[in-house]
């Protein structure tokens, strides 16, 4: 029973803290841009981008 009480209260605390941190992150703009980071790693060199070489691959 002691374990149950402990586990349930820990579970509740965790849930609250997860929801709270999600809402906080959302309000701070954490999820505003979910596209650029994925594209950026593909570009190693600025000169290539200027030459539009990447566009040949349809990006």
């Amino acid at each position, binding site marked *: 029973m002691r*374990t149950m009480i402990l*586990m349930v209260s*820990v579970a509740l605390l*965790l849930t609250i803290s997860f929801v709270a941190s999600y809402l906080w*992150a959302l309000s*701070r*703009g*954490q*999820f505003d*841009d*979910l*596209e*650029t*980071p*994925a*594209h*950026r*790693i*593909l*570009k*190693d*060199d*600025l*000169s290539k*981008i200027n030459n539009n070489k990447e566009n040949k*691959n349809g*990006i």
Partner: protein
Amino acid sequence: MEYNTSMNSYDDEIVRKFALATLIWAGVGFILGLVAALQMAYPLLNTNLEWLTFGRLRPLHTNAVIFAFAGNAIFAGIYHSTQRLLRTRLFSDALSKVHFWGWQLIIVAAAVTLPLGFTQGKEYAELEWPIDVLITVIWVVFAVNFFGTLYKRREKHMYVAIWFYIATIITVAVLHIINSIAIPFSYMKSYTVWAGMQDALVQWWYGHNAVAFFLTTPFLGLMYYYVPKIVNAPIYSYRLSIIHFWSLVFIYIWAGPHHLLYTALPEWLQTLGMAFSIMLWAPSWGGMINGLLTFKGRWSQLRNEPIWKFLIAALTFYGMATFEGPLLSIKSVSALGHYTDWIIGHVHGGALGWNGFLSFAILYYIVPKLWKTELYSKKLAEQHFWLGLTGIVLYYISMLVAGVTQGLMWKAIDANGQLVYPDFIETVVRIVPLYRVRALGGLLYISGFILMVYNIIKTIKSSKSELTDTPISNLSYDNIKDGKPRLLEGYATLFSVLALLAILVGTIIEIYPTFNVHQYINPEITVQPFTALEQEGRDLYVREGCYVCHSQQIRPLVDEKLRYGEPSTIAESMYDHPYQWGSKRTGPDLARQGKKYPDMWHYQHLLDPRQIQPRSIMPAYTWLAQKNIDYSQIKKKLNVLKNLGVPYSDIEVQNADVAAQAQAKIIEEGLQKQGVTEKLEGKEILAMIAYLQSLGQKEHR
């Protein structure tokens, strides 16, 4: 052009070193695996050399594959991708070198000490304390080098691969240190501070998360970098990667107890472990889906690109293994699958398919880049892929069938409520042909690997240009604008602290309650510690790796009660440093082996198992009758155990050597009365027999 000055270029030399080390150790690990597989199919291959028996080679195989092959592959990939993702050279060339040579030294030390029998007897954490200390030091070097690179990065934003590397470095440190805490009694031997059920829990918290944070998170990080790079397409969903990362690192750490279902572990922990293991399915498949869908719209190129094939197969095997894992964590499935070869099949699907194929893909991709040339032959890589794939399929299917077959045979009960196969050996003989199929699968996998080695050597030889470091790209991009709130992915320290918190929650909730282990033990039960000679025998049991094939944990299932006796209790193993519950039954459970057979039976069986059981696949342990017990260490051993809480009196510790000699004498005389003519005075086999006869005899009500 001043690109070759250390400031303006990536350190490619360290990546080349780790890449070559990956190839070398992969070969060693694979061949050791093949030898071990053949030993199970043909027991005579154990030879009569103690260093080459299955019990000592199997830990060497697992350590070589996990820490040497996968380890070097991880370091090569992390050092290669991190520099490019953060657009800076590694923090320190010197630290990189120390990291590289230190890690190779650890591997060599493991390759020397494990065959010699220096082991802590904890799976995937066998290495003894001096090597554990060295691992800690080198890991810290790696961490300083990595976080130093993060600190001086020119790219503010940390891409998802970096998150996985951060989680890996932090968690492996926590796991390794907590699981390896031990008190030495000599320069090469120690006893773990954890005992019995608590040791089992800590060990599988470690063991499962070695899979999670050494074989999964770093490889996921690599996947997040190399799949988009190789395919030249952005990762399918960056949003999914955020959810996937946080849920994976948070949930994984809880799953350890699924290795201990139906054991003496408190039931709430078993249920918790099972629940989290099932939950783990979702984030795991999040990773797989994210990887696979990155190929969307480009599938047609799969035909011509062997590297793509490796990537897709790796992700598919990852998906299969992470579906099968939660399945096996369900208690009723575990009742059948645990202790069988199904588990061996499961882990090899992950190791050969996911870790192996992903590492191969990365090597095929980075080696031509690092040596500034083209891959020698796509055709050979293609053949490597198909050989490897066929090998894995043969391996997996043979072990799945072997595991389910044996599990069902163990459980078979006839109309009278009796075991259908009371002789354990019948269930072994039935699956030995499958061990041969498994070895064939391994052979195919290695054949493919040899093609790869040839291909890579030819590629490197074709390199004409001088080996120089790649210049750092001049693309600088900072998405954090002044005045706008900065994203979590721009804060390395905060991110690392949050990742640490995510893995500590499960850790604390699972491990902390076991500090009150006594509350689970009926106060009317008293448990006698091992006598000095039995403890000595126990150390030999650990040395020979008996736990690799024999469990000491009877589950409360009907067939196990019939076959082995009453279920194991928490109290029974409460003084066991380390616990020896085991995870596989190639031979029968030994928890209640004591007094089942006379000393003479054990004597003959240990020296030549086939004299007692002609079809046995157990190695012969002839050297136990030739080597002398080292009585000089016994007092020190008992003293360390006493300090760890084993209830030895001062007198017992002081007289340990005398008492051990007296007990050995009794066993020796007993054997001689029955006609043993060999001189056995002070031989190790006496201690081993004493220990085996004490199993299950220590609990009194």
